[in-house]
């Protein structure tokens, strides 16, 4: 392999029309994901939406109807006459915000615990592994349901409830990477040269963990969004003044026979986001997989 590496010339694929089409199609999910983020961040600045209630004359209007103030409700309205498009837009903000916070929080905790466990091994590793075992004994979202349910509803509690199991993926990834990295020559040389442990981790281990972690972060982001929707569907998410897709889906269940769009549209918005995040993650995984 090394001798081949010496005469290695990069193979540049010939750009054909088909390859260009593929590149464009491949970029679509990333663009859509970006649109969600932009819509979540800036959308509420342009679209007025009041969660307190709309016009009662506008109750349960089907998608595309004209409301009493003359505007068009693209996605229809709900049982209180509130515009569904506004709800989807504000819901995107909630989802993206909570997903980001959960991934940041659990990513930091996971990387810290995982790197420490993989690099130090011994007791640290044992304790970390047992804690993970215990947390994994709780089925999926159960622990989040219990935590979000018994504490008073707030953003912090939702983020904590979702992070309690979310960090495990990050910890496992960085643990296994730190374990192999510590046996690599550059780490060994640094150790022999007397470089301090903290510096070795910062300079010679963490940079290699970063790429794959970013790829994992997208997967965990999608998971966090789905879990947040599930919590708010059960009525255990953010305080009811804020808008969330799960909450809208739950509220539409009562009116399923007469106004299917209340439940259907936020769910589609959610699924499309999760799919696009998944594709983005696949691309990142392939990218960082090749580099290693």
């Amino acid at each position, binding site marked *: 392999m090394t001798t081949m590496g010496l005469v290695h010339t990069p193979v540049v694929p010939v750009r054909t029309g088909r390859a260009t089409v593929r590149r464009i199609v491949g970029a679509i999910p990333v663009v859509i994901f970006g649109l969600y983020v932009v819509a979540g961040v800036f959308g509420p600045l342009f679209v007025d939406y009041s969660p307190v209630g709309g016009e009662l004359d506008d109750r349960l209007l089907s998608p595309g109807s004209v409301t009493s103030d003359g505007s068009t409700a693209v996605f229809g309205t709900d049982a209180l006459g509130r515009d569904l498009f506004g709800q989807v837009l504000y819901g995107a903000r909630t989802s993206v915000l909570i997903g980001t916070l959960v991934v940041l929080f659990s990513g930091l905790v996971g990387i810290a615990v995982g790197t420490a466990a993989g690099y130090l091994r011994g007791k640290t590793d044992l304790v970390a592994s047992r804690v993970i075992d215990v947390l994994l*004994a*709780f089925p999926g979202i159960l622990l989040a349901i219990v*935590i979000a*349910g018994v504490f008073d509803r707030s953003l912090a509690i939702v983020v904590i409830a979702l992070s309690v199991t979310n960090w495990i993926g990050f910890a496992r990834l960085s643990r296994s990477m730190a374990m192999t990295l510590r046996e690599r020559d550059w780490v060994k040389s640094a150790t022999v040269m007397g470089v301090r442990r903290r510096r070795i981790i910062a300079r010679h281990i963490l940079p290699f963990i970063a790429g794959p972690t970013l790829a994992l972060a997208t997967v965990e982001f999608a998971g966090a969004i789905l879990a947040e*929707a599930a919590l708010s569907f059960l009525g*255990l998410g953010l305080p009811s003044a804020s808008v969330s897709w799960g909450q809208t*889906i739950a509220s539409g*269940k009562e009116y399923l026979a007469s106004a299917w769009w209340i439940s259907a549209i936020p*769910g589609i918005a959610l699924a499309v986001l999760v799919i696009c995040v998944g594709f983005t993650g696949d691309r990142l995984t392939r990218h960082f997989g090749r580099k290693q």
Partner: protein
Amino acid sequence: MLPQLVRRIGLMVFTVWGAVSLTFVILRLAPGDQATVQLGPDATAAEVSALRGELGLDRPIFVQYLDYLGSASTGDFGESYRFHESAMTVILERFPATVVLALTATALALTIGLLLGIMAGRSPGRLADRVISGITLVMQAIPPFWSGIMLILLMALTLRLLPSAGSGDLEHLVLPSVTLAIPFTALVARITRSSVAEVTAEPYILTARSKGLSERAVLARHAVRNSVIPVVTIVSLHIGTLLGGAVIVEQVFAWEGVGSLLVGAVGNRDYAIVQGATVLFAIVVVTMNLLADVLNSRLDPRIRAGAQA
């Protein structure tokens, strides 16, 4: 095999202890103890402290913990204040419904997932593979509470074929189990696909083909058998995910299982039920993981040999 098993069971007991303790810690950190929650905001201080004494909440926290641990180990989680009955009795009454739901969903997911996975994995990159990959991707992305509602809309409200909620009959079982099976089917299909694709690239498959075995025989006797092992491992690791999904699906379809009981108990702060149900779920997950390990060593002689060495 035996020392290995003893070690595994030791770990299992430890994990369950951890789960029991963590549940205790969470509920103690929560604002308001069982006495204040149970009596509501109108209760006088005297009433609250009387009930506290009755429930043993006035004792030092460590004594409470040991007492809780002691009774939990005998399956006693105290009395549910809403059902006026032992929490474990209420939970165990509901347990069979959850088991039926989870098993039906698993059976569905395994049958369809394996089938889809084999179809996709035997010809990687071909049309069948791409179509199945696309379908499974979507199946994994849609949340069960939403697909459940959409199934109600389609099958119960529009086509009027099946009941939308409730439990008991076989026809009540169809929609919840299909809903629960959707993401799980996709998971099984994806793992089977990559496993079959990997195995069919092995030299012994080439040998089997070149000695003139029919494609069916190659698949049935050589490829599928060997690709099942990772499927068993991953599926067992996701039993927790399945049960977590069951909690939500039960809520959507008003299925009278432990999941909907737990969600209701969380809402009403019926701590005895919350503790009992959470611990029961943890025990099920840990036990299933152990069983999967044993099953795997049955399926794969290499693991058996490794355990003996």
